[in-house]
């Protein structure tokens, strides 16, 4: 065996050990040891991993300053894995005192048994006025007489337009400002006018429209045609004639080459890099536009494609864990109320506040995209309220994807999705007879 110069195994071991100690120590120093005694600790979980997290953190800092007896610590987990981790941690007793849930995920969390009723917060002095919220939202959040949380915002899907492209296509008001297309004819007209094979300013083709998250794009059309997810007895109704009609519109867009083939998340990318004139996406995507400084954008309701206006929406709901001790409960309620009271600040991050009084605030009206998206609230629908929401939506997403990729006809795709979704519903009824008496 050759001897290898000055290589020393003991030195290597020592080196690794020192690195371990240093990095471990630094981690501990940065992440641990911030606990101040005498304050009630409230852990607050959410999935605000984008720019919205920064706004939320600022609101929390203000709260902590104004409430010296409480310390709220925010923990962010990406939405993709959020609900699983929340469910597991919650059932371990390790989870947070307060957490954000999308309205449509609450049925699932309720089954896990750690969401508490907050209806007491809407009664008595200093209460959050229930009449300050839209009845549709409050009904959605009430289950068997329990109020599952206080809605913080409403985030509908809406239309984002590129102002320069609107103007170039002649979509201007009398006083020369850009305006968004309002109905089917205008929408298709703008797509045709903004689809340019060779735009001298771009390396390649400019598109009039692009799919973002095609499942959600489809869902914003469903209410326009009167489509639903479930019927009154909780059975799948995905293949209703209304839904098929809505999907046929998207099929037409794809077939006639009015949008590039759907590509993961890159419709939005095309929009923000000025290669797409219009996309439909959630109001929360505004946070991404706010950090760009060279894009002139305009928000508007989804154009009315079907017989009536409509879009899909959801809410971030503030929930309090069940079985907290009195001190934690009081502090949690105080924080939830504080957030609700400060939802105008939250709106600035790219949200529509759930409170009607805040939406009527002149300050809110100044927020162009948010207030334009808020116009859709009377016609919005939420995803279905069911514990198997994730699997259900997956089936629908697959159906939509197959159609926009030209692999299946709308009716066949929705028939298949309906059969599969119904099978999931029935499996769930079998596995959880207690929920389905």
């Amino acid at each position, binding site marked *: 065996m050759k001897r290898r110069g000055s290589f020393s195994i003991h030195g290597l071991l020592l080196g*690794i*050990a020192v690195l371990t100690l240093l990095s471990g120590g630094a981690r501990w120093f940065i992440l641990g040891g911030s606990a101040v005694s005498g304050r009630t600790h409230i852990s607050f979980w959410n999935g605000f991993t984008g720019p919205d997290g920064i706004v939320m953190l600022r609101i929390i800092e203000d709260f902590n300053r104004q409430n010296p007896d409480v310390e709220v610590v925010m923990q962010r987990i990406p939405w993709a894995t959020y609900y699983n981790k929340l469910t597991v941690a919650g059932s371990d007793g*390790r989870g947070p005192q307060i957490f954000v849930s999308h309205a449509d995920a609450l049925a699932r969390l309720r089954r896990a048994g750690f969401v508490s009723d907050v209806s007491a917060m809407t009664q008595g002095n200093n209460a959050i006025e229930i009449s300050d919220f839209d009845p549709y939202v409050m009904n959605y959040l009430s289950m068997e007489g329990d109020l599952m949380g206080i809605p913080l915002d409403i985030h509908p899907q809406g239309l984002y337009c590129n102002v320069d492209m609107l103007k170039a296509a002649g979509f201007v008001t009398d006083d020369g400002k850009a305006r968004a297309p309002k109905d089917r004819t205008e929408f298709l007209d703008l797509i045709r006018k903004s689809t340019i094979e060779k735009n001298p300013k771009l390396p390649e083709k400019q598109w009039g429209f692009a799919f973002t998250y095609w499942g959600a794009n489809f869902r914003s059309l469903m209410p326009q045609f009167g489509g639903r997810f479930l019927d009154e007895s909780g059975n799948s109704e995905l293949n209703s004639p209304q839904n098929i009609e809505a999907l046929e519109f998207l099929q037409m867009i794809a077939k006639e080459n009015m949008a590039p083939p759907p590509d993961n998340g890159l419709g939005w990318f095309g929009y923000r890099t000025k290669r797409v004139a219009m996309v439909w996406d959630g109001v929360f995507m505004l946070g991404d536009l706010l950090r760009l400084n060279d894009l002139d954008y305009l928000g508007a309701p989804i154009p009315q494609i079907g017989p009536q206006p409509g879009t899909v929406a959801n809410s971030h709901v503030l929930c309090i864990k069940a079985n907290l001790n009195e001190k934690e409960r009081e502090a949690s309620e105080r924080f939830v109320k504080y957030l609700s009271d400060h939802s105008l600040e939250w709106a600035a991050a790219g949200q529509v506040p759930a409170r009607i009084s805040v939406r009527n605030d002149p300050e809110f009206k100044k927020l162009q995209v948010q207030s334009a998206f808020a116009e859709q609230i009377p016609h919005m629908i939420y995803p279905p309220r069911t514990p198997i929401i994730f699997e259900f939506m997956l089936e629908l997403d697959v159906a939509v994807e197959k159609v926009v990729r030209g692999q299946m006809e709308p009716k066949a795709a929705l028939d298949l999705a309906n059969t599969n979704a119904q099978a999931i519903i029935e499996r769930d009824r079998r596995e959880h007879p207690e929920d389905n008496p």
Partner: protein
Amino acid sequence: MRKYASLNYVMVAIGLLFVAPFAFMFFASFKREAEVLRPEAILPKAWDASNYEAISRNSVEAPINIWFLNSVFIATATTLLVITLASLTAFAITRLKVRGGNIILGLIVGTMMIPAQLFLIPLYVILRRLHLLDTPYAMILPSAAGGFGVFMLSSFMRSLPTAIEEAALLDGCTLPQMFWKITLPLCGPSIATLAVFTFIASWNDYITPLTFMESVTNYTLPVGIALFQSSYSTQYGLTIATSLIATAPLVIAFLVFQKQIIESMTASGLKE
């Protein structure tokens, strides 16, 4: 066999093709966000270090410094634990020849056939019981149980001559002394290789932290980078700059230990 000069150029060209994406990443990391993904210009219009500034500021959105620290801690602790346990175990089995040692070794090697993914779900359930989810130990401790290190060091130690150790024992050396002063240095190169392999595997591991970590502040670099993609909209400049920073330590480790790595990589391949 005749050698063609042109082949030299072809191979260099292929080599460059393989590193071209790195060059692209390097240039892109100095571009402004709006410019990053424009295919028509590879070099930045104006060199701009704002991506690196953003990383050094350690934003709330993407606490890259903490991810880096987490990665270092997890990878070094895993490496330390793996080489310690594996060398002790291999020593006990091959040098001290404990009774039943070969059966144990057989069992360890046998479990290496089971794909790592099979362990994911049960480990999740077990780590949850041990209250280790969302801590670095959820990654460190299970990695230390892997059989590869024991297998590799056992086969190496078995090939060592016993004469030096026997002489040392006659000189009154104790068994722990023998391990520390004689066996360990003899195994130096192969332990170094094991260390580099373990470090790289741990550093680049994606599915384990994705499954076992919860909070953004407990992320390692690979899941952190993937987070850029999942959170609302990808900031490509930042993603690419972070990727370069995440890769740098491995490239350095690779260049330093290149000989050991390539030798043992091929050794494991040629033995079959």
